[in-house]
């Protein structure tokens, strides 16, 4: 496929701007936080911002990052609002909700929001004092995780998408809603008419099937994302399409194909082009534990979703990318909610994530991008404990449940690699949601975390 000339010009202009900013000591880093739905992006951004702002006030909230900066971090402040058309990520509102009594975890993200921070650093070297301080701008974006799964749709036609979506849906046929949609789609004649009530019914069944896959089966690879999370504008007719077993012939198939193309184009123009075409660093958040506990199908589905997203993102490495200076420098794969396993099992969690993301990691690595694997708890909600099960002491975690009741959780043995089918014999397990720890509503001293500093050091330590 020929490259888009306008895109190339924009890339070249962006590369020139980046070079200019580096030369005057004011580099800008766009950190893309990609994560499937419920991976913890909003909490991650809240913790990252609160802890960075606290570190700028002199608190030792991120020791590994400070060490990477050589103790030269002097101040961190939010970039004042300009003329942006997007909502600002409201870190103080999220912190206040987490610190309130009773506390509230952030709700499902419904819309885009951004925030940029300025990190003020002393220059390194003996002559650094002559040139004044460096200003590093860190740009962050929060968005509904469901929308990210539309990224692989950009390179697919309606027929290919239909076949892939139906194949994925059949794995969840056990769910009643999925079965209902599959029965409806299977019963449609090859040349079905483009009748409005038929389409509305099909769309309703398809959405119910996707919701069942997400909420009952723990699947993540569900498309189109806006059907699950339409965003602030609500639903529009362009969302009313669904996969067909015979996607080529008939009026219905033609209308579905037109809507599919329009939807993909809208997502490309409104979401991916402005925010995911150019970024410098990427954190890929994965709820490995959630996928592991949801069963073999959900586990495989998560791996497939991450690989599909990595396959659709641009990491640079091509000659055009080198010419225009586009490309990603570092990618970190992160297993979130690491406080749900005791300390001695966190290495196993990282190893398991390493296996889960082996394919995307290899693909990213071949583009010359440095990659790393981390475990992270954006907000640490538990402490390590010992529980007695079947007369044996086992390492567990202890936290406070929403009702105020204390619970110990034994998360099972975390396998070092994708487990064999026998692993899931014990049935599904849903990790309880713990209350966040006591927090300062103003976030003056940051937020307790596990591994956030090491992650940030790996992602942006080289530019500090």
């Amino acid at each position, binding site marked *: 496929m020929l490259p888009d000339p306008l895109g190339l010009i924009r890339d070249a202009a962006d590369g020139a701007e980046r070079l200019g900013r580096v030369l005057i000591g004011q580099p800008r880093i766009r950190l893309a936080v990609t994560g499937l739905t419920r991976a913890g992006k909003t909490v991650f951004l809240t913790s990252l911002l609160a802890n960075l702002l606290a570190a700028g006030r002199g608190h030792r909230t991120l020791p590994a990052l400070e060490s990477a900066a050589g103790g030269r971090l002097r101040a961190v402040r939010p970039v004042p609002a300009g003329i942006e058309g997007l909502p600002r990520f409201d870190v103080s509102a999220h912190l206040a909700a987490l610190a309130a009594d009773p506390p509230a975890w952030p709700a499902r993200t419904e819309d885009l929001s951004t925030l940029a921070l300025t990190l003020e650093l002393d220059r390194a070297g003996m002559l650094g*004092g002559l040139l004044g301080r460096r200003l590093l701008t860190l740009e962050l974006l929060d968005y509904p995780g469901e929308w990210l799964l539309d990224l692989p749709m950009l390179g697919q036609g309606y027929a290919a998408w239909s076949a892939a979506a139906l194949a994925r849906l059949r794995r969840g046929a056990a769910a009643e809603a999925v079965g209902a949609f599959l029965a409806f789609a299977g019963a449609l004649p090859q040349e079905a008419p483009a009748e409005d009530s038929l389409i509305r019914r099909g769309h309703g069944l398809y959405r119910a099937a996707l919701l069942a896959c997400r909420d009952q089966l723990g699947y993540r690879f569900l498309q189109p994302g806006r059907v699950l999370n339409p965003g602030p504008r609500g639903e529009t007719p362009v969302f009313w399409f669904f996969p067909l077993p015979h996607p080529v012939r008939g009026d219905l198939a033609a209308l579905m194909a037109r809507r599919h193309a329009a939807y993909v184009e809208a997502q490309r123009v409104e979401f991916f082009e402005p925010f995911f075409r150019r970024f410098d660093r990427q954190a890929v958040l994965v709820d490995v534990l959630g996928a592991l506990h949801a069963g073999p199908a959900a586990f495989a589905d998560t791996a497939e979703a991450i690989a599909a997203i990595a396959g659709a993102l641009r990491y640079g490495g091509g000659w055009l990318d080198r010419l225009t200076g586009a490309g990603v420098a570092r990618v970190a794969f992160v297993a979130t909610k690491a406080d749900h396993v005791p300390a001695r099992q966190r290495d196993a969690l990282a190893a398991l994530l390493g296996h889960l993301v082996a394919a995307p990691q290899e693909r990213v690595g071949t583009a010359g991008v440095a990659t790393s694997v981390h475990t992270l708890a954006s907000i640490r909600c538990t402490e390590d404990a010992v*529980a007695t*099960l079947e007369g044996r002491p086992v390492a*567990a975690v202890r936290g*406070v449940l929403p009702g*105020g*009741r204390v*619970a110990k959780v034994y998360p099972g*043995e975390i396998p070092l690699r994708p487990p064999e089918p026998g692993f899931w014999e014990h049935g599904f397990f849903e990790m309880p949601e713990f209350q966040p*720890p006591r927090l300062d509503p103003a976030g003056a001293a940051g937020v307790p975390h596990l591994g956030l500093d090491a992650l940030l050091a790996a992602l942006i330590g080289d530019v500090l």
Partner: protein
Amino acid sequence: MSATPPEGGPRGPRVILEEPAPSTPRLDFGWEQAVVPVAAARPPGRWSGLGRVVAGAALLGLGLAALDAANFVADQFTRGPLQGWATLGVVVGGFGLLAAGAWTELRGLASIRAVDHARAAFARGELEAARAEALRWAGGIAEAAPLQPALREAGSVAELRALLEAGPLRALEARSAALGRAAAVQSFAVTAISPSPGLDVLVFTWRGVRLVRQVAALHGLRPGFAGTWALLRRTLADAAMVAATDVAVDAAARALLSNRLLEQFAGDAAAGAVAARRMLRLAKVAAEACRIVPPD
């Protein structure tokens, strides 16, 4: 590695609920205490040997002088009322001047402490304390006086800070920088023409102290000797950092030029440049030390 749990171990994850308690508090990791560097406990306030010696000498000197003066005044009154009143006038005037000097010093120190209190209030985010300090400070500064109504209405510490930083503090910083530039030009000139390095040091020290006092006066502080010394002490750590850069500048200037004549000239010019740069830096550091709002 197999996914099978250790032999005989529990299979699969579990939730073990503890006995219900009336009200379980949320977990507290003591994060605020852990991340905020805890100030080292102050050593017990015992006087050192040298301190006692100095205090004793001061007590003897001042006390005996006062007693001696009193006796002398009494003696003078026995000689005649005129001598007595004249002597009393001289003694009261002399001790009065001493007390006034000490009072000025104490006030100078107290004004610097007030800056510390204001900064602490801003850093802790205590709105009312920060507002009171800001209003008190603004009352004494011509640039800040018109801002008082806005300071009274400010709804948050961030607002207070923004009002001060955008208005008077920015103006004061500009004027401090101008003072620094004037001092830098003078230091550069003196260093370039002075015959001996010893004189350089003397001129630099005098000009530096004067600069710090000028900047402090600009910020509404009237530091006496003790206050100036307290301000200078705050700049010492920073000055040590500047010194490392100075060595590098000097070395680079000498390394780049191999001609002896040029080397001589460049060496002097580099020394002058270093002195000038120190003055600029000193002005900046002194202005930072006098700001009632802590740096971000």
